[in-house]
């Protein structure tokens, strides 16, 4: 089982979208894929056609000292997902306090769900550092940092690096951390330049092809579908396929 943590330094960079579409592409390639939504926004499930009224999620199960087993859903797109759950503020605070008490919480829960060989678990995290990111990073085999090509994201680069370094660098089961640019639009000089600079800074840790800014992605969410289902020919889908191939080749390299 390969655990991929999708993190981002800032909100609104399309991290959940990337995570969902990455998962669907992996699933289309024949891998069992599980998505875990660690983001209190609880939005991941909406990408996969879940009922917005459903409140169930990992928070409830955890607070009831129950198992994720009861909150794992199968989607129509070959991936299963564990939603965060619709929670009150009090529940969330309690939950987070619990998590900081239980650093092995995520690991244990995932272990319990079983580890098929050849499978992927993708962890969607809230933007910026949090107790969720902390837990995700400490078990992830591979970290995908989603950035947008603007100054704000670029400025956080060093901080992200140190964060990754702290949690991941010394683990033997860590394959590496990789970056991908989302919402890229070569029309804007800043986008191009930031990409160029990041390429020189990160070298082959930056995915060679960015994910382009594409209306189809937003439309796909409005349709509650992964982009590959909603608009199979759009550029962003193509980009995500390339990203997936690239990440898989990284995993293969590391495993070998």
């Amino acid at each position: 089982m390969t655990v991929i943590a999708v993190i981002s330094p800032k909100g609104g960079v399309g991290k959940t979208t990337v995570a969902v579409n990455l998962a669907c592409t992996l699933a289309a390639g024949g891998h069992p894929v599980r998505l875990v939504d660690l983001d209190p926004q609880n939005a991941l499930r909406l990408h996969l056609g879940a009922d917005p009224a459903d409140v169930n999620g990992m928070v409830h199960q955890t607070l009831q000292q129950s198992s994720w087993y009861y909150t794992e859903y199968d989607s129509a797109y070959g991936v299963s997902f564990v939603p965060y759950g619709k929670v009150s503020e009090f529940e969330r605070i309690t939950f987070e306090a619990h998590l900081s008490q239980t650093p092995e919480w995520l690991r244990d829960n995932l272990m319990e769900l079983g580890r098929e060989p050849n499978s992927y678990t993708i962890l969607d995290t809230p933007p910026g550092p949090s107790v969720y990111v902390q837990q995700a990073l400490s078990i992830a085999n591979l970290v995908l940092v989603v950035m947008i090509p603007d100054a704000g994201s670029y400025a956080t680069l060093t901080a992200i690096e140190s964060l990754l370094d702290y949690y991941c660098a010394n683990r033997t089961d860590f394959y590496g951390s990789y970056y991908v640019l989302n919402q890229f639009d070569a029309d804007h000089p800043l986008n191009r330049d930031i990409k160029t600079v990041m390429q020189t800074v990160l070298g082959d840790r930056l995915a060679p092809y960015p994910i382009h800014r594409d209306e189809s992605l937003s439309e796909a969410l409005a349709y509650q579908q992964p982009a590959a289902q909603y608009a199979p020919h759009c550029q962003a889908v193509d980009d995500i396929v390339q990203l997936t191939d690239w990440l898989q080749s990284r995993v293969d390299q590391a495993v070998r």
Partner: protein
Amino acid sequence: MKKAANADIRNLFKKFGGDTSNYQEIQQEYVVDQAKKNWPIVTAIEKERISAPQLRASAENPVARAAGFSGANTGSFNAAQPGVIKRAPVIQQTQSPALFAKADVPPPARTLFSSVNTPVSATRSLFSAMSPPVQAEPGRREVERSDQDKITSVFSRLLNPQNNVAVNTQDKSLRSLFGFLKK
């Protein structure tokens, strides 16, 4: 860092069996240079990045690492003079973040974010490029911050968990009970 050649060069060299590392992407270097010059923030961060020691070094050296991430309780990183790592007595290596939080070692060599009390590095920091260095008294926990600064603080909070995390205490009560149900 030697940048890998572009796809068209790779194709070309594959055709006759050459080594692409012999090719120099000169026009691309011009583009990169221009890109760096276009935006002040890139220049600023670039400077800071170059002056900082490499990540790997600190990862391998627990002391430096510990030094690098111990922010005491300031809520942000302290910075020493760039390029200098103060050698502290080697303390026992451990994976516990809690220990790092308590470690009382000299300020780190590498940082992105300006310290509130070391003007030397402040000039090299990100914020010096973005905005005037933040004025703050030593020991103060919260400072008024810009957008980026908020990120700083959350990152540093993560790196210095205020809650002591007890590594070995695990809650296995009910959950383990349901665990077998699944099997």
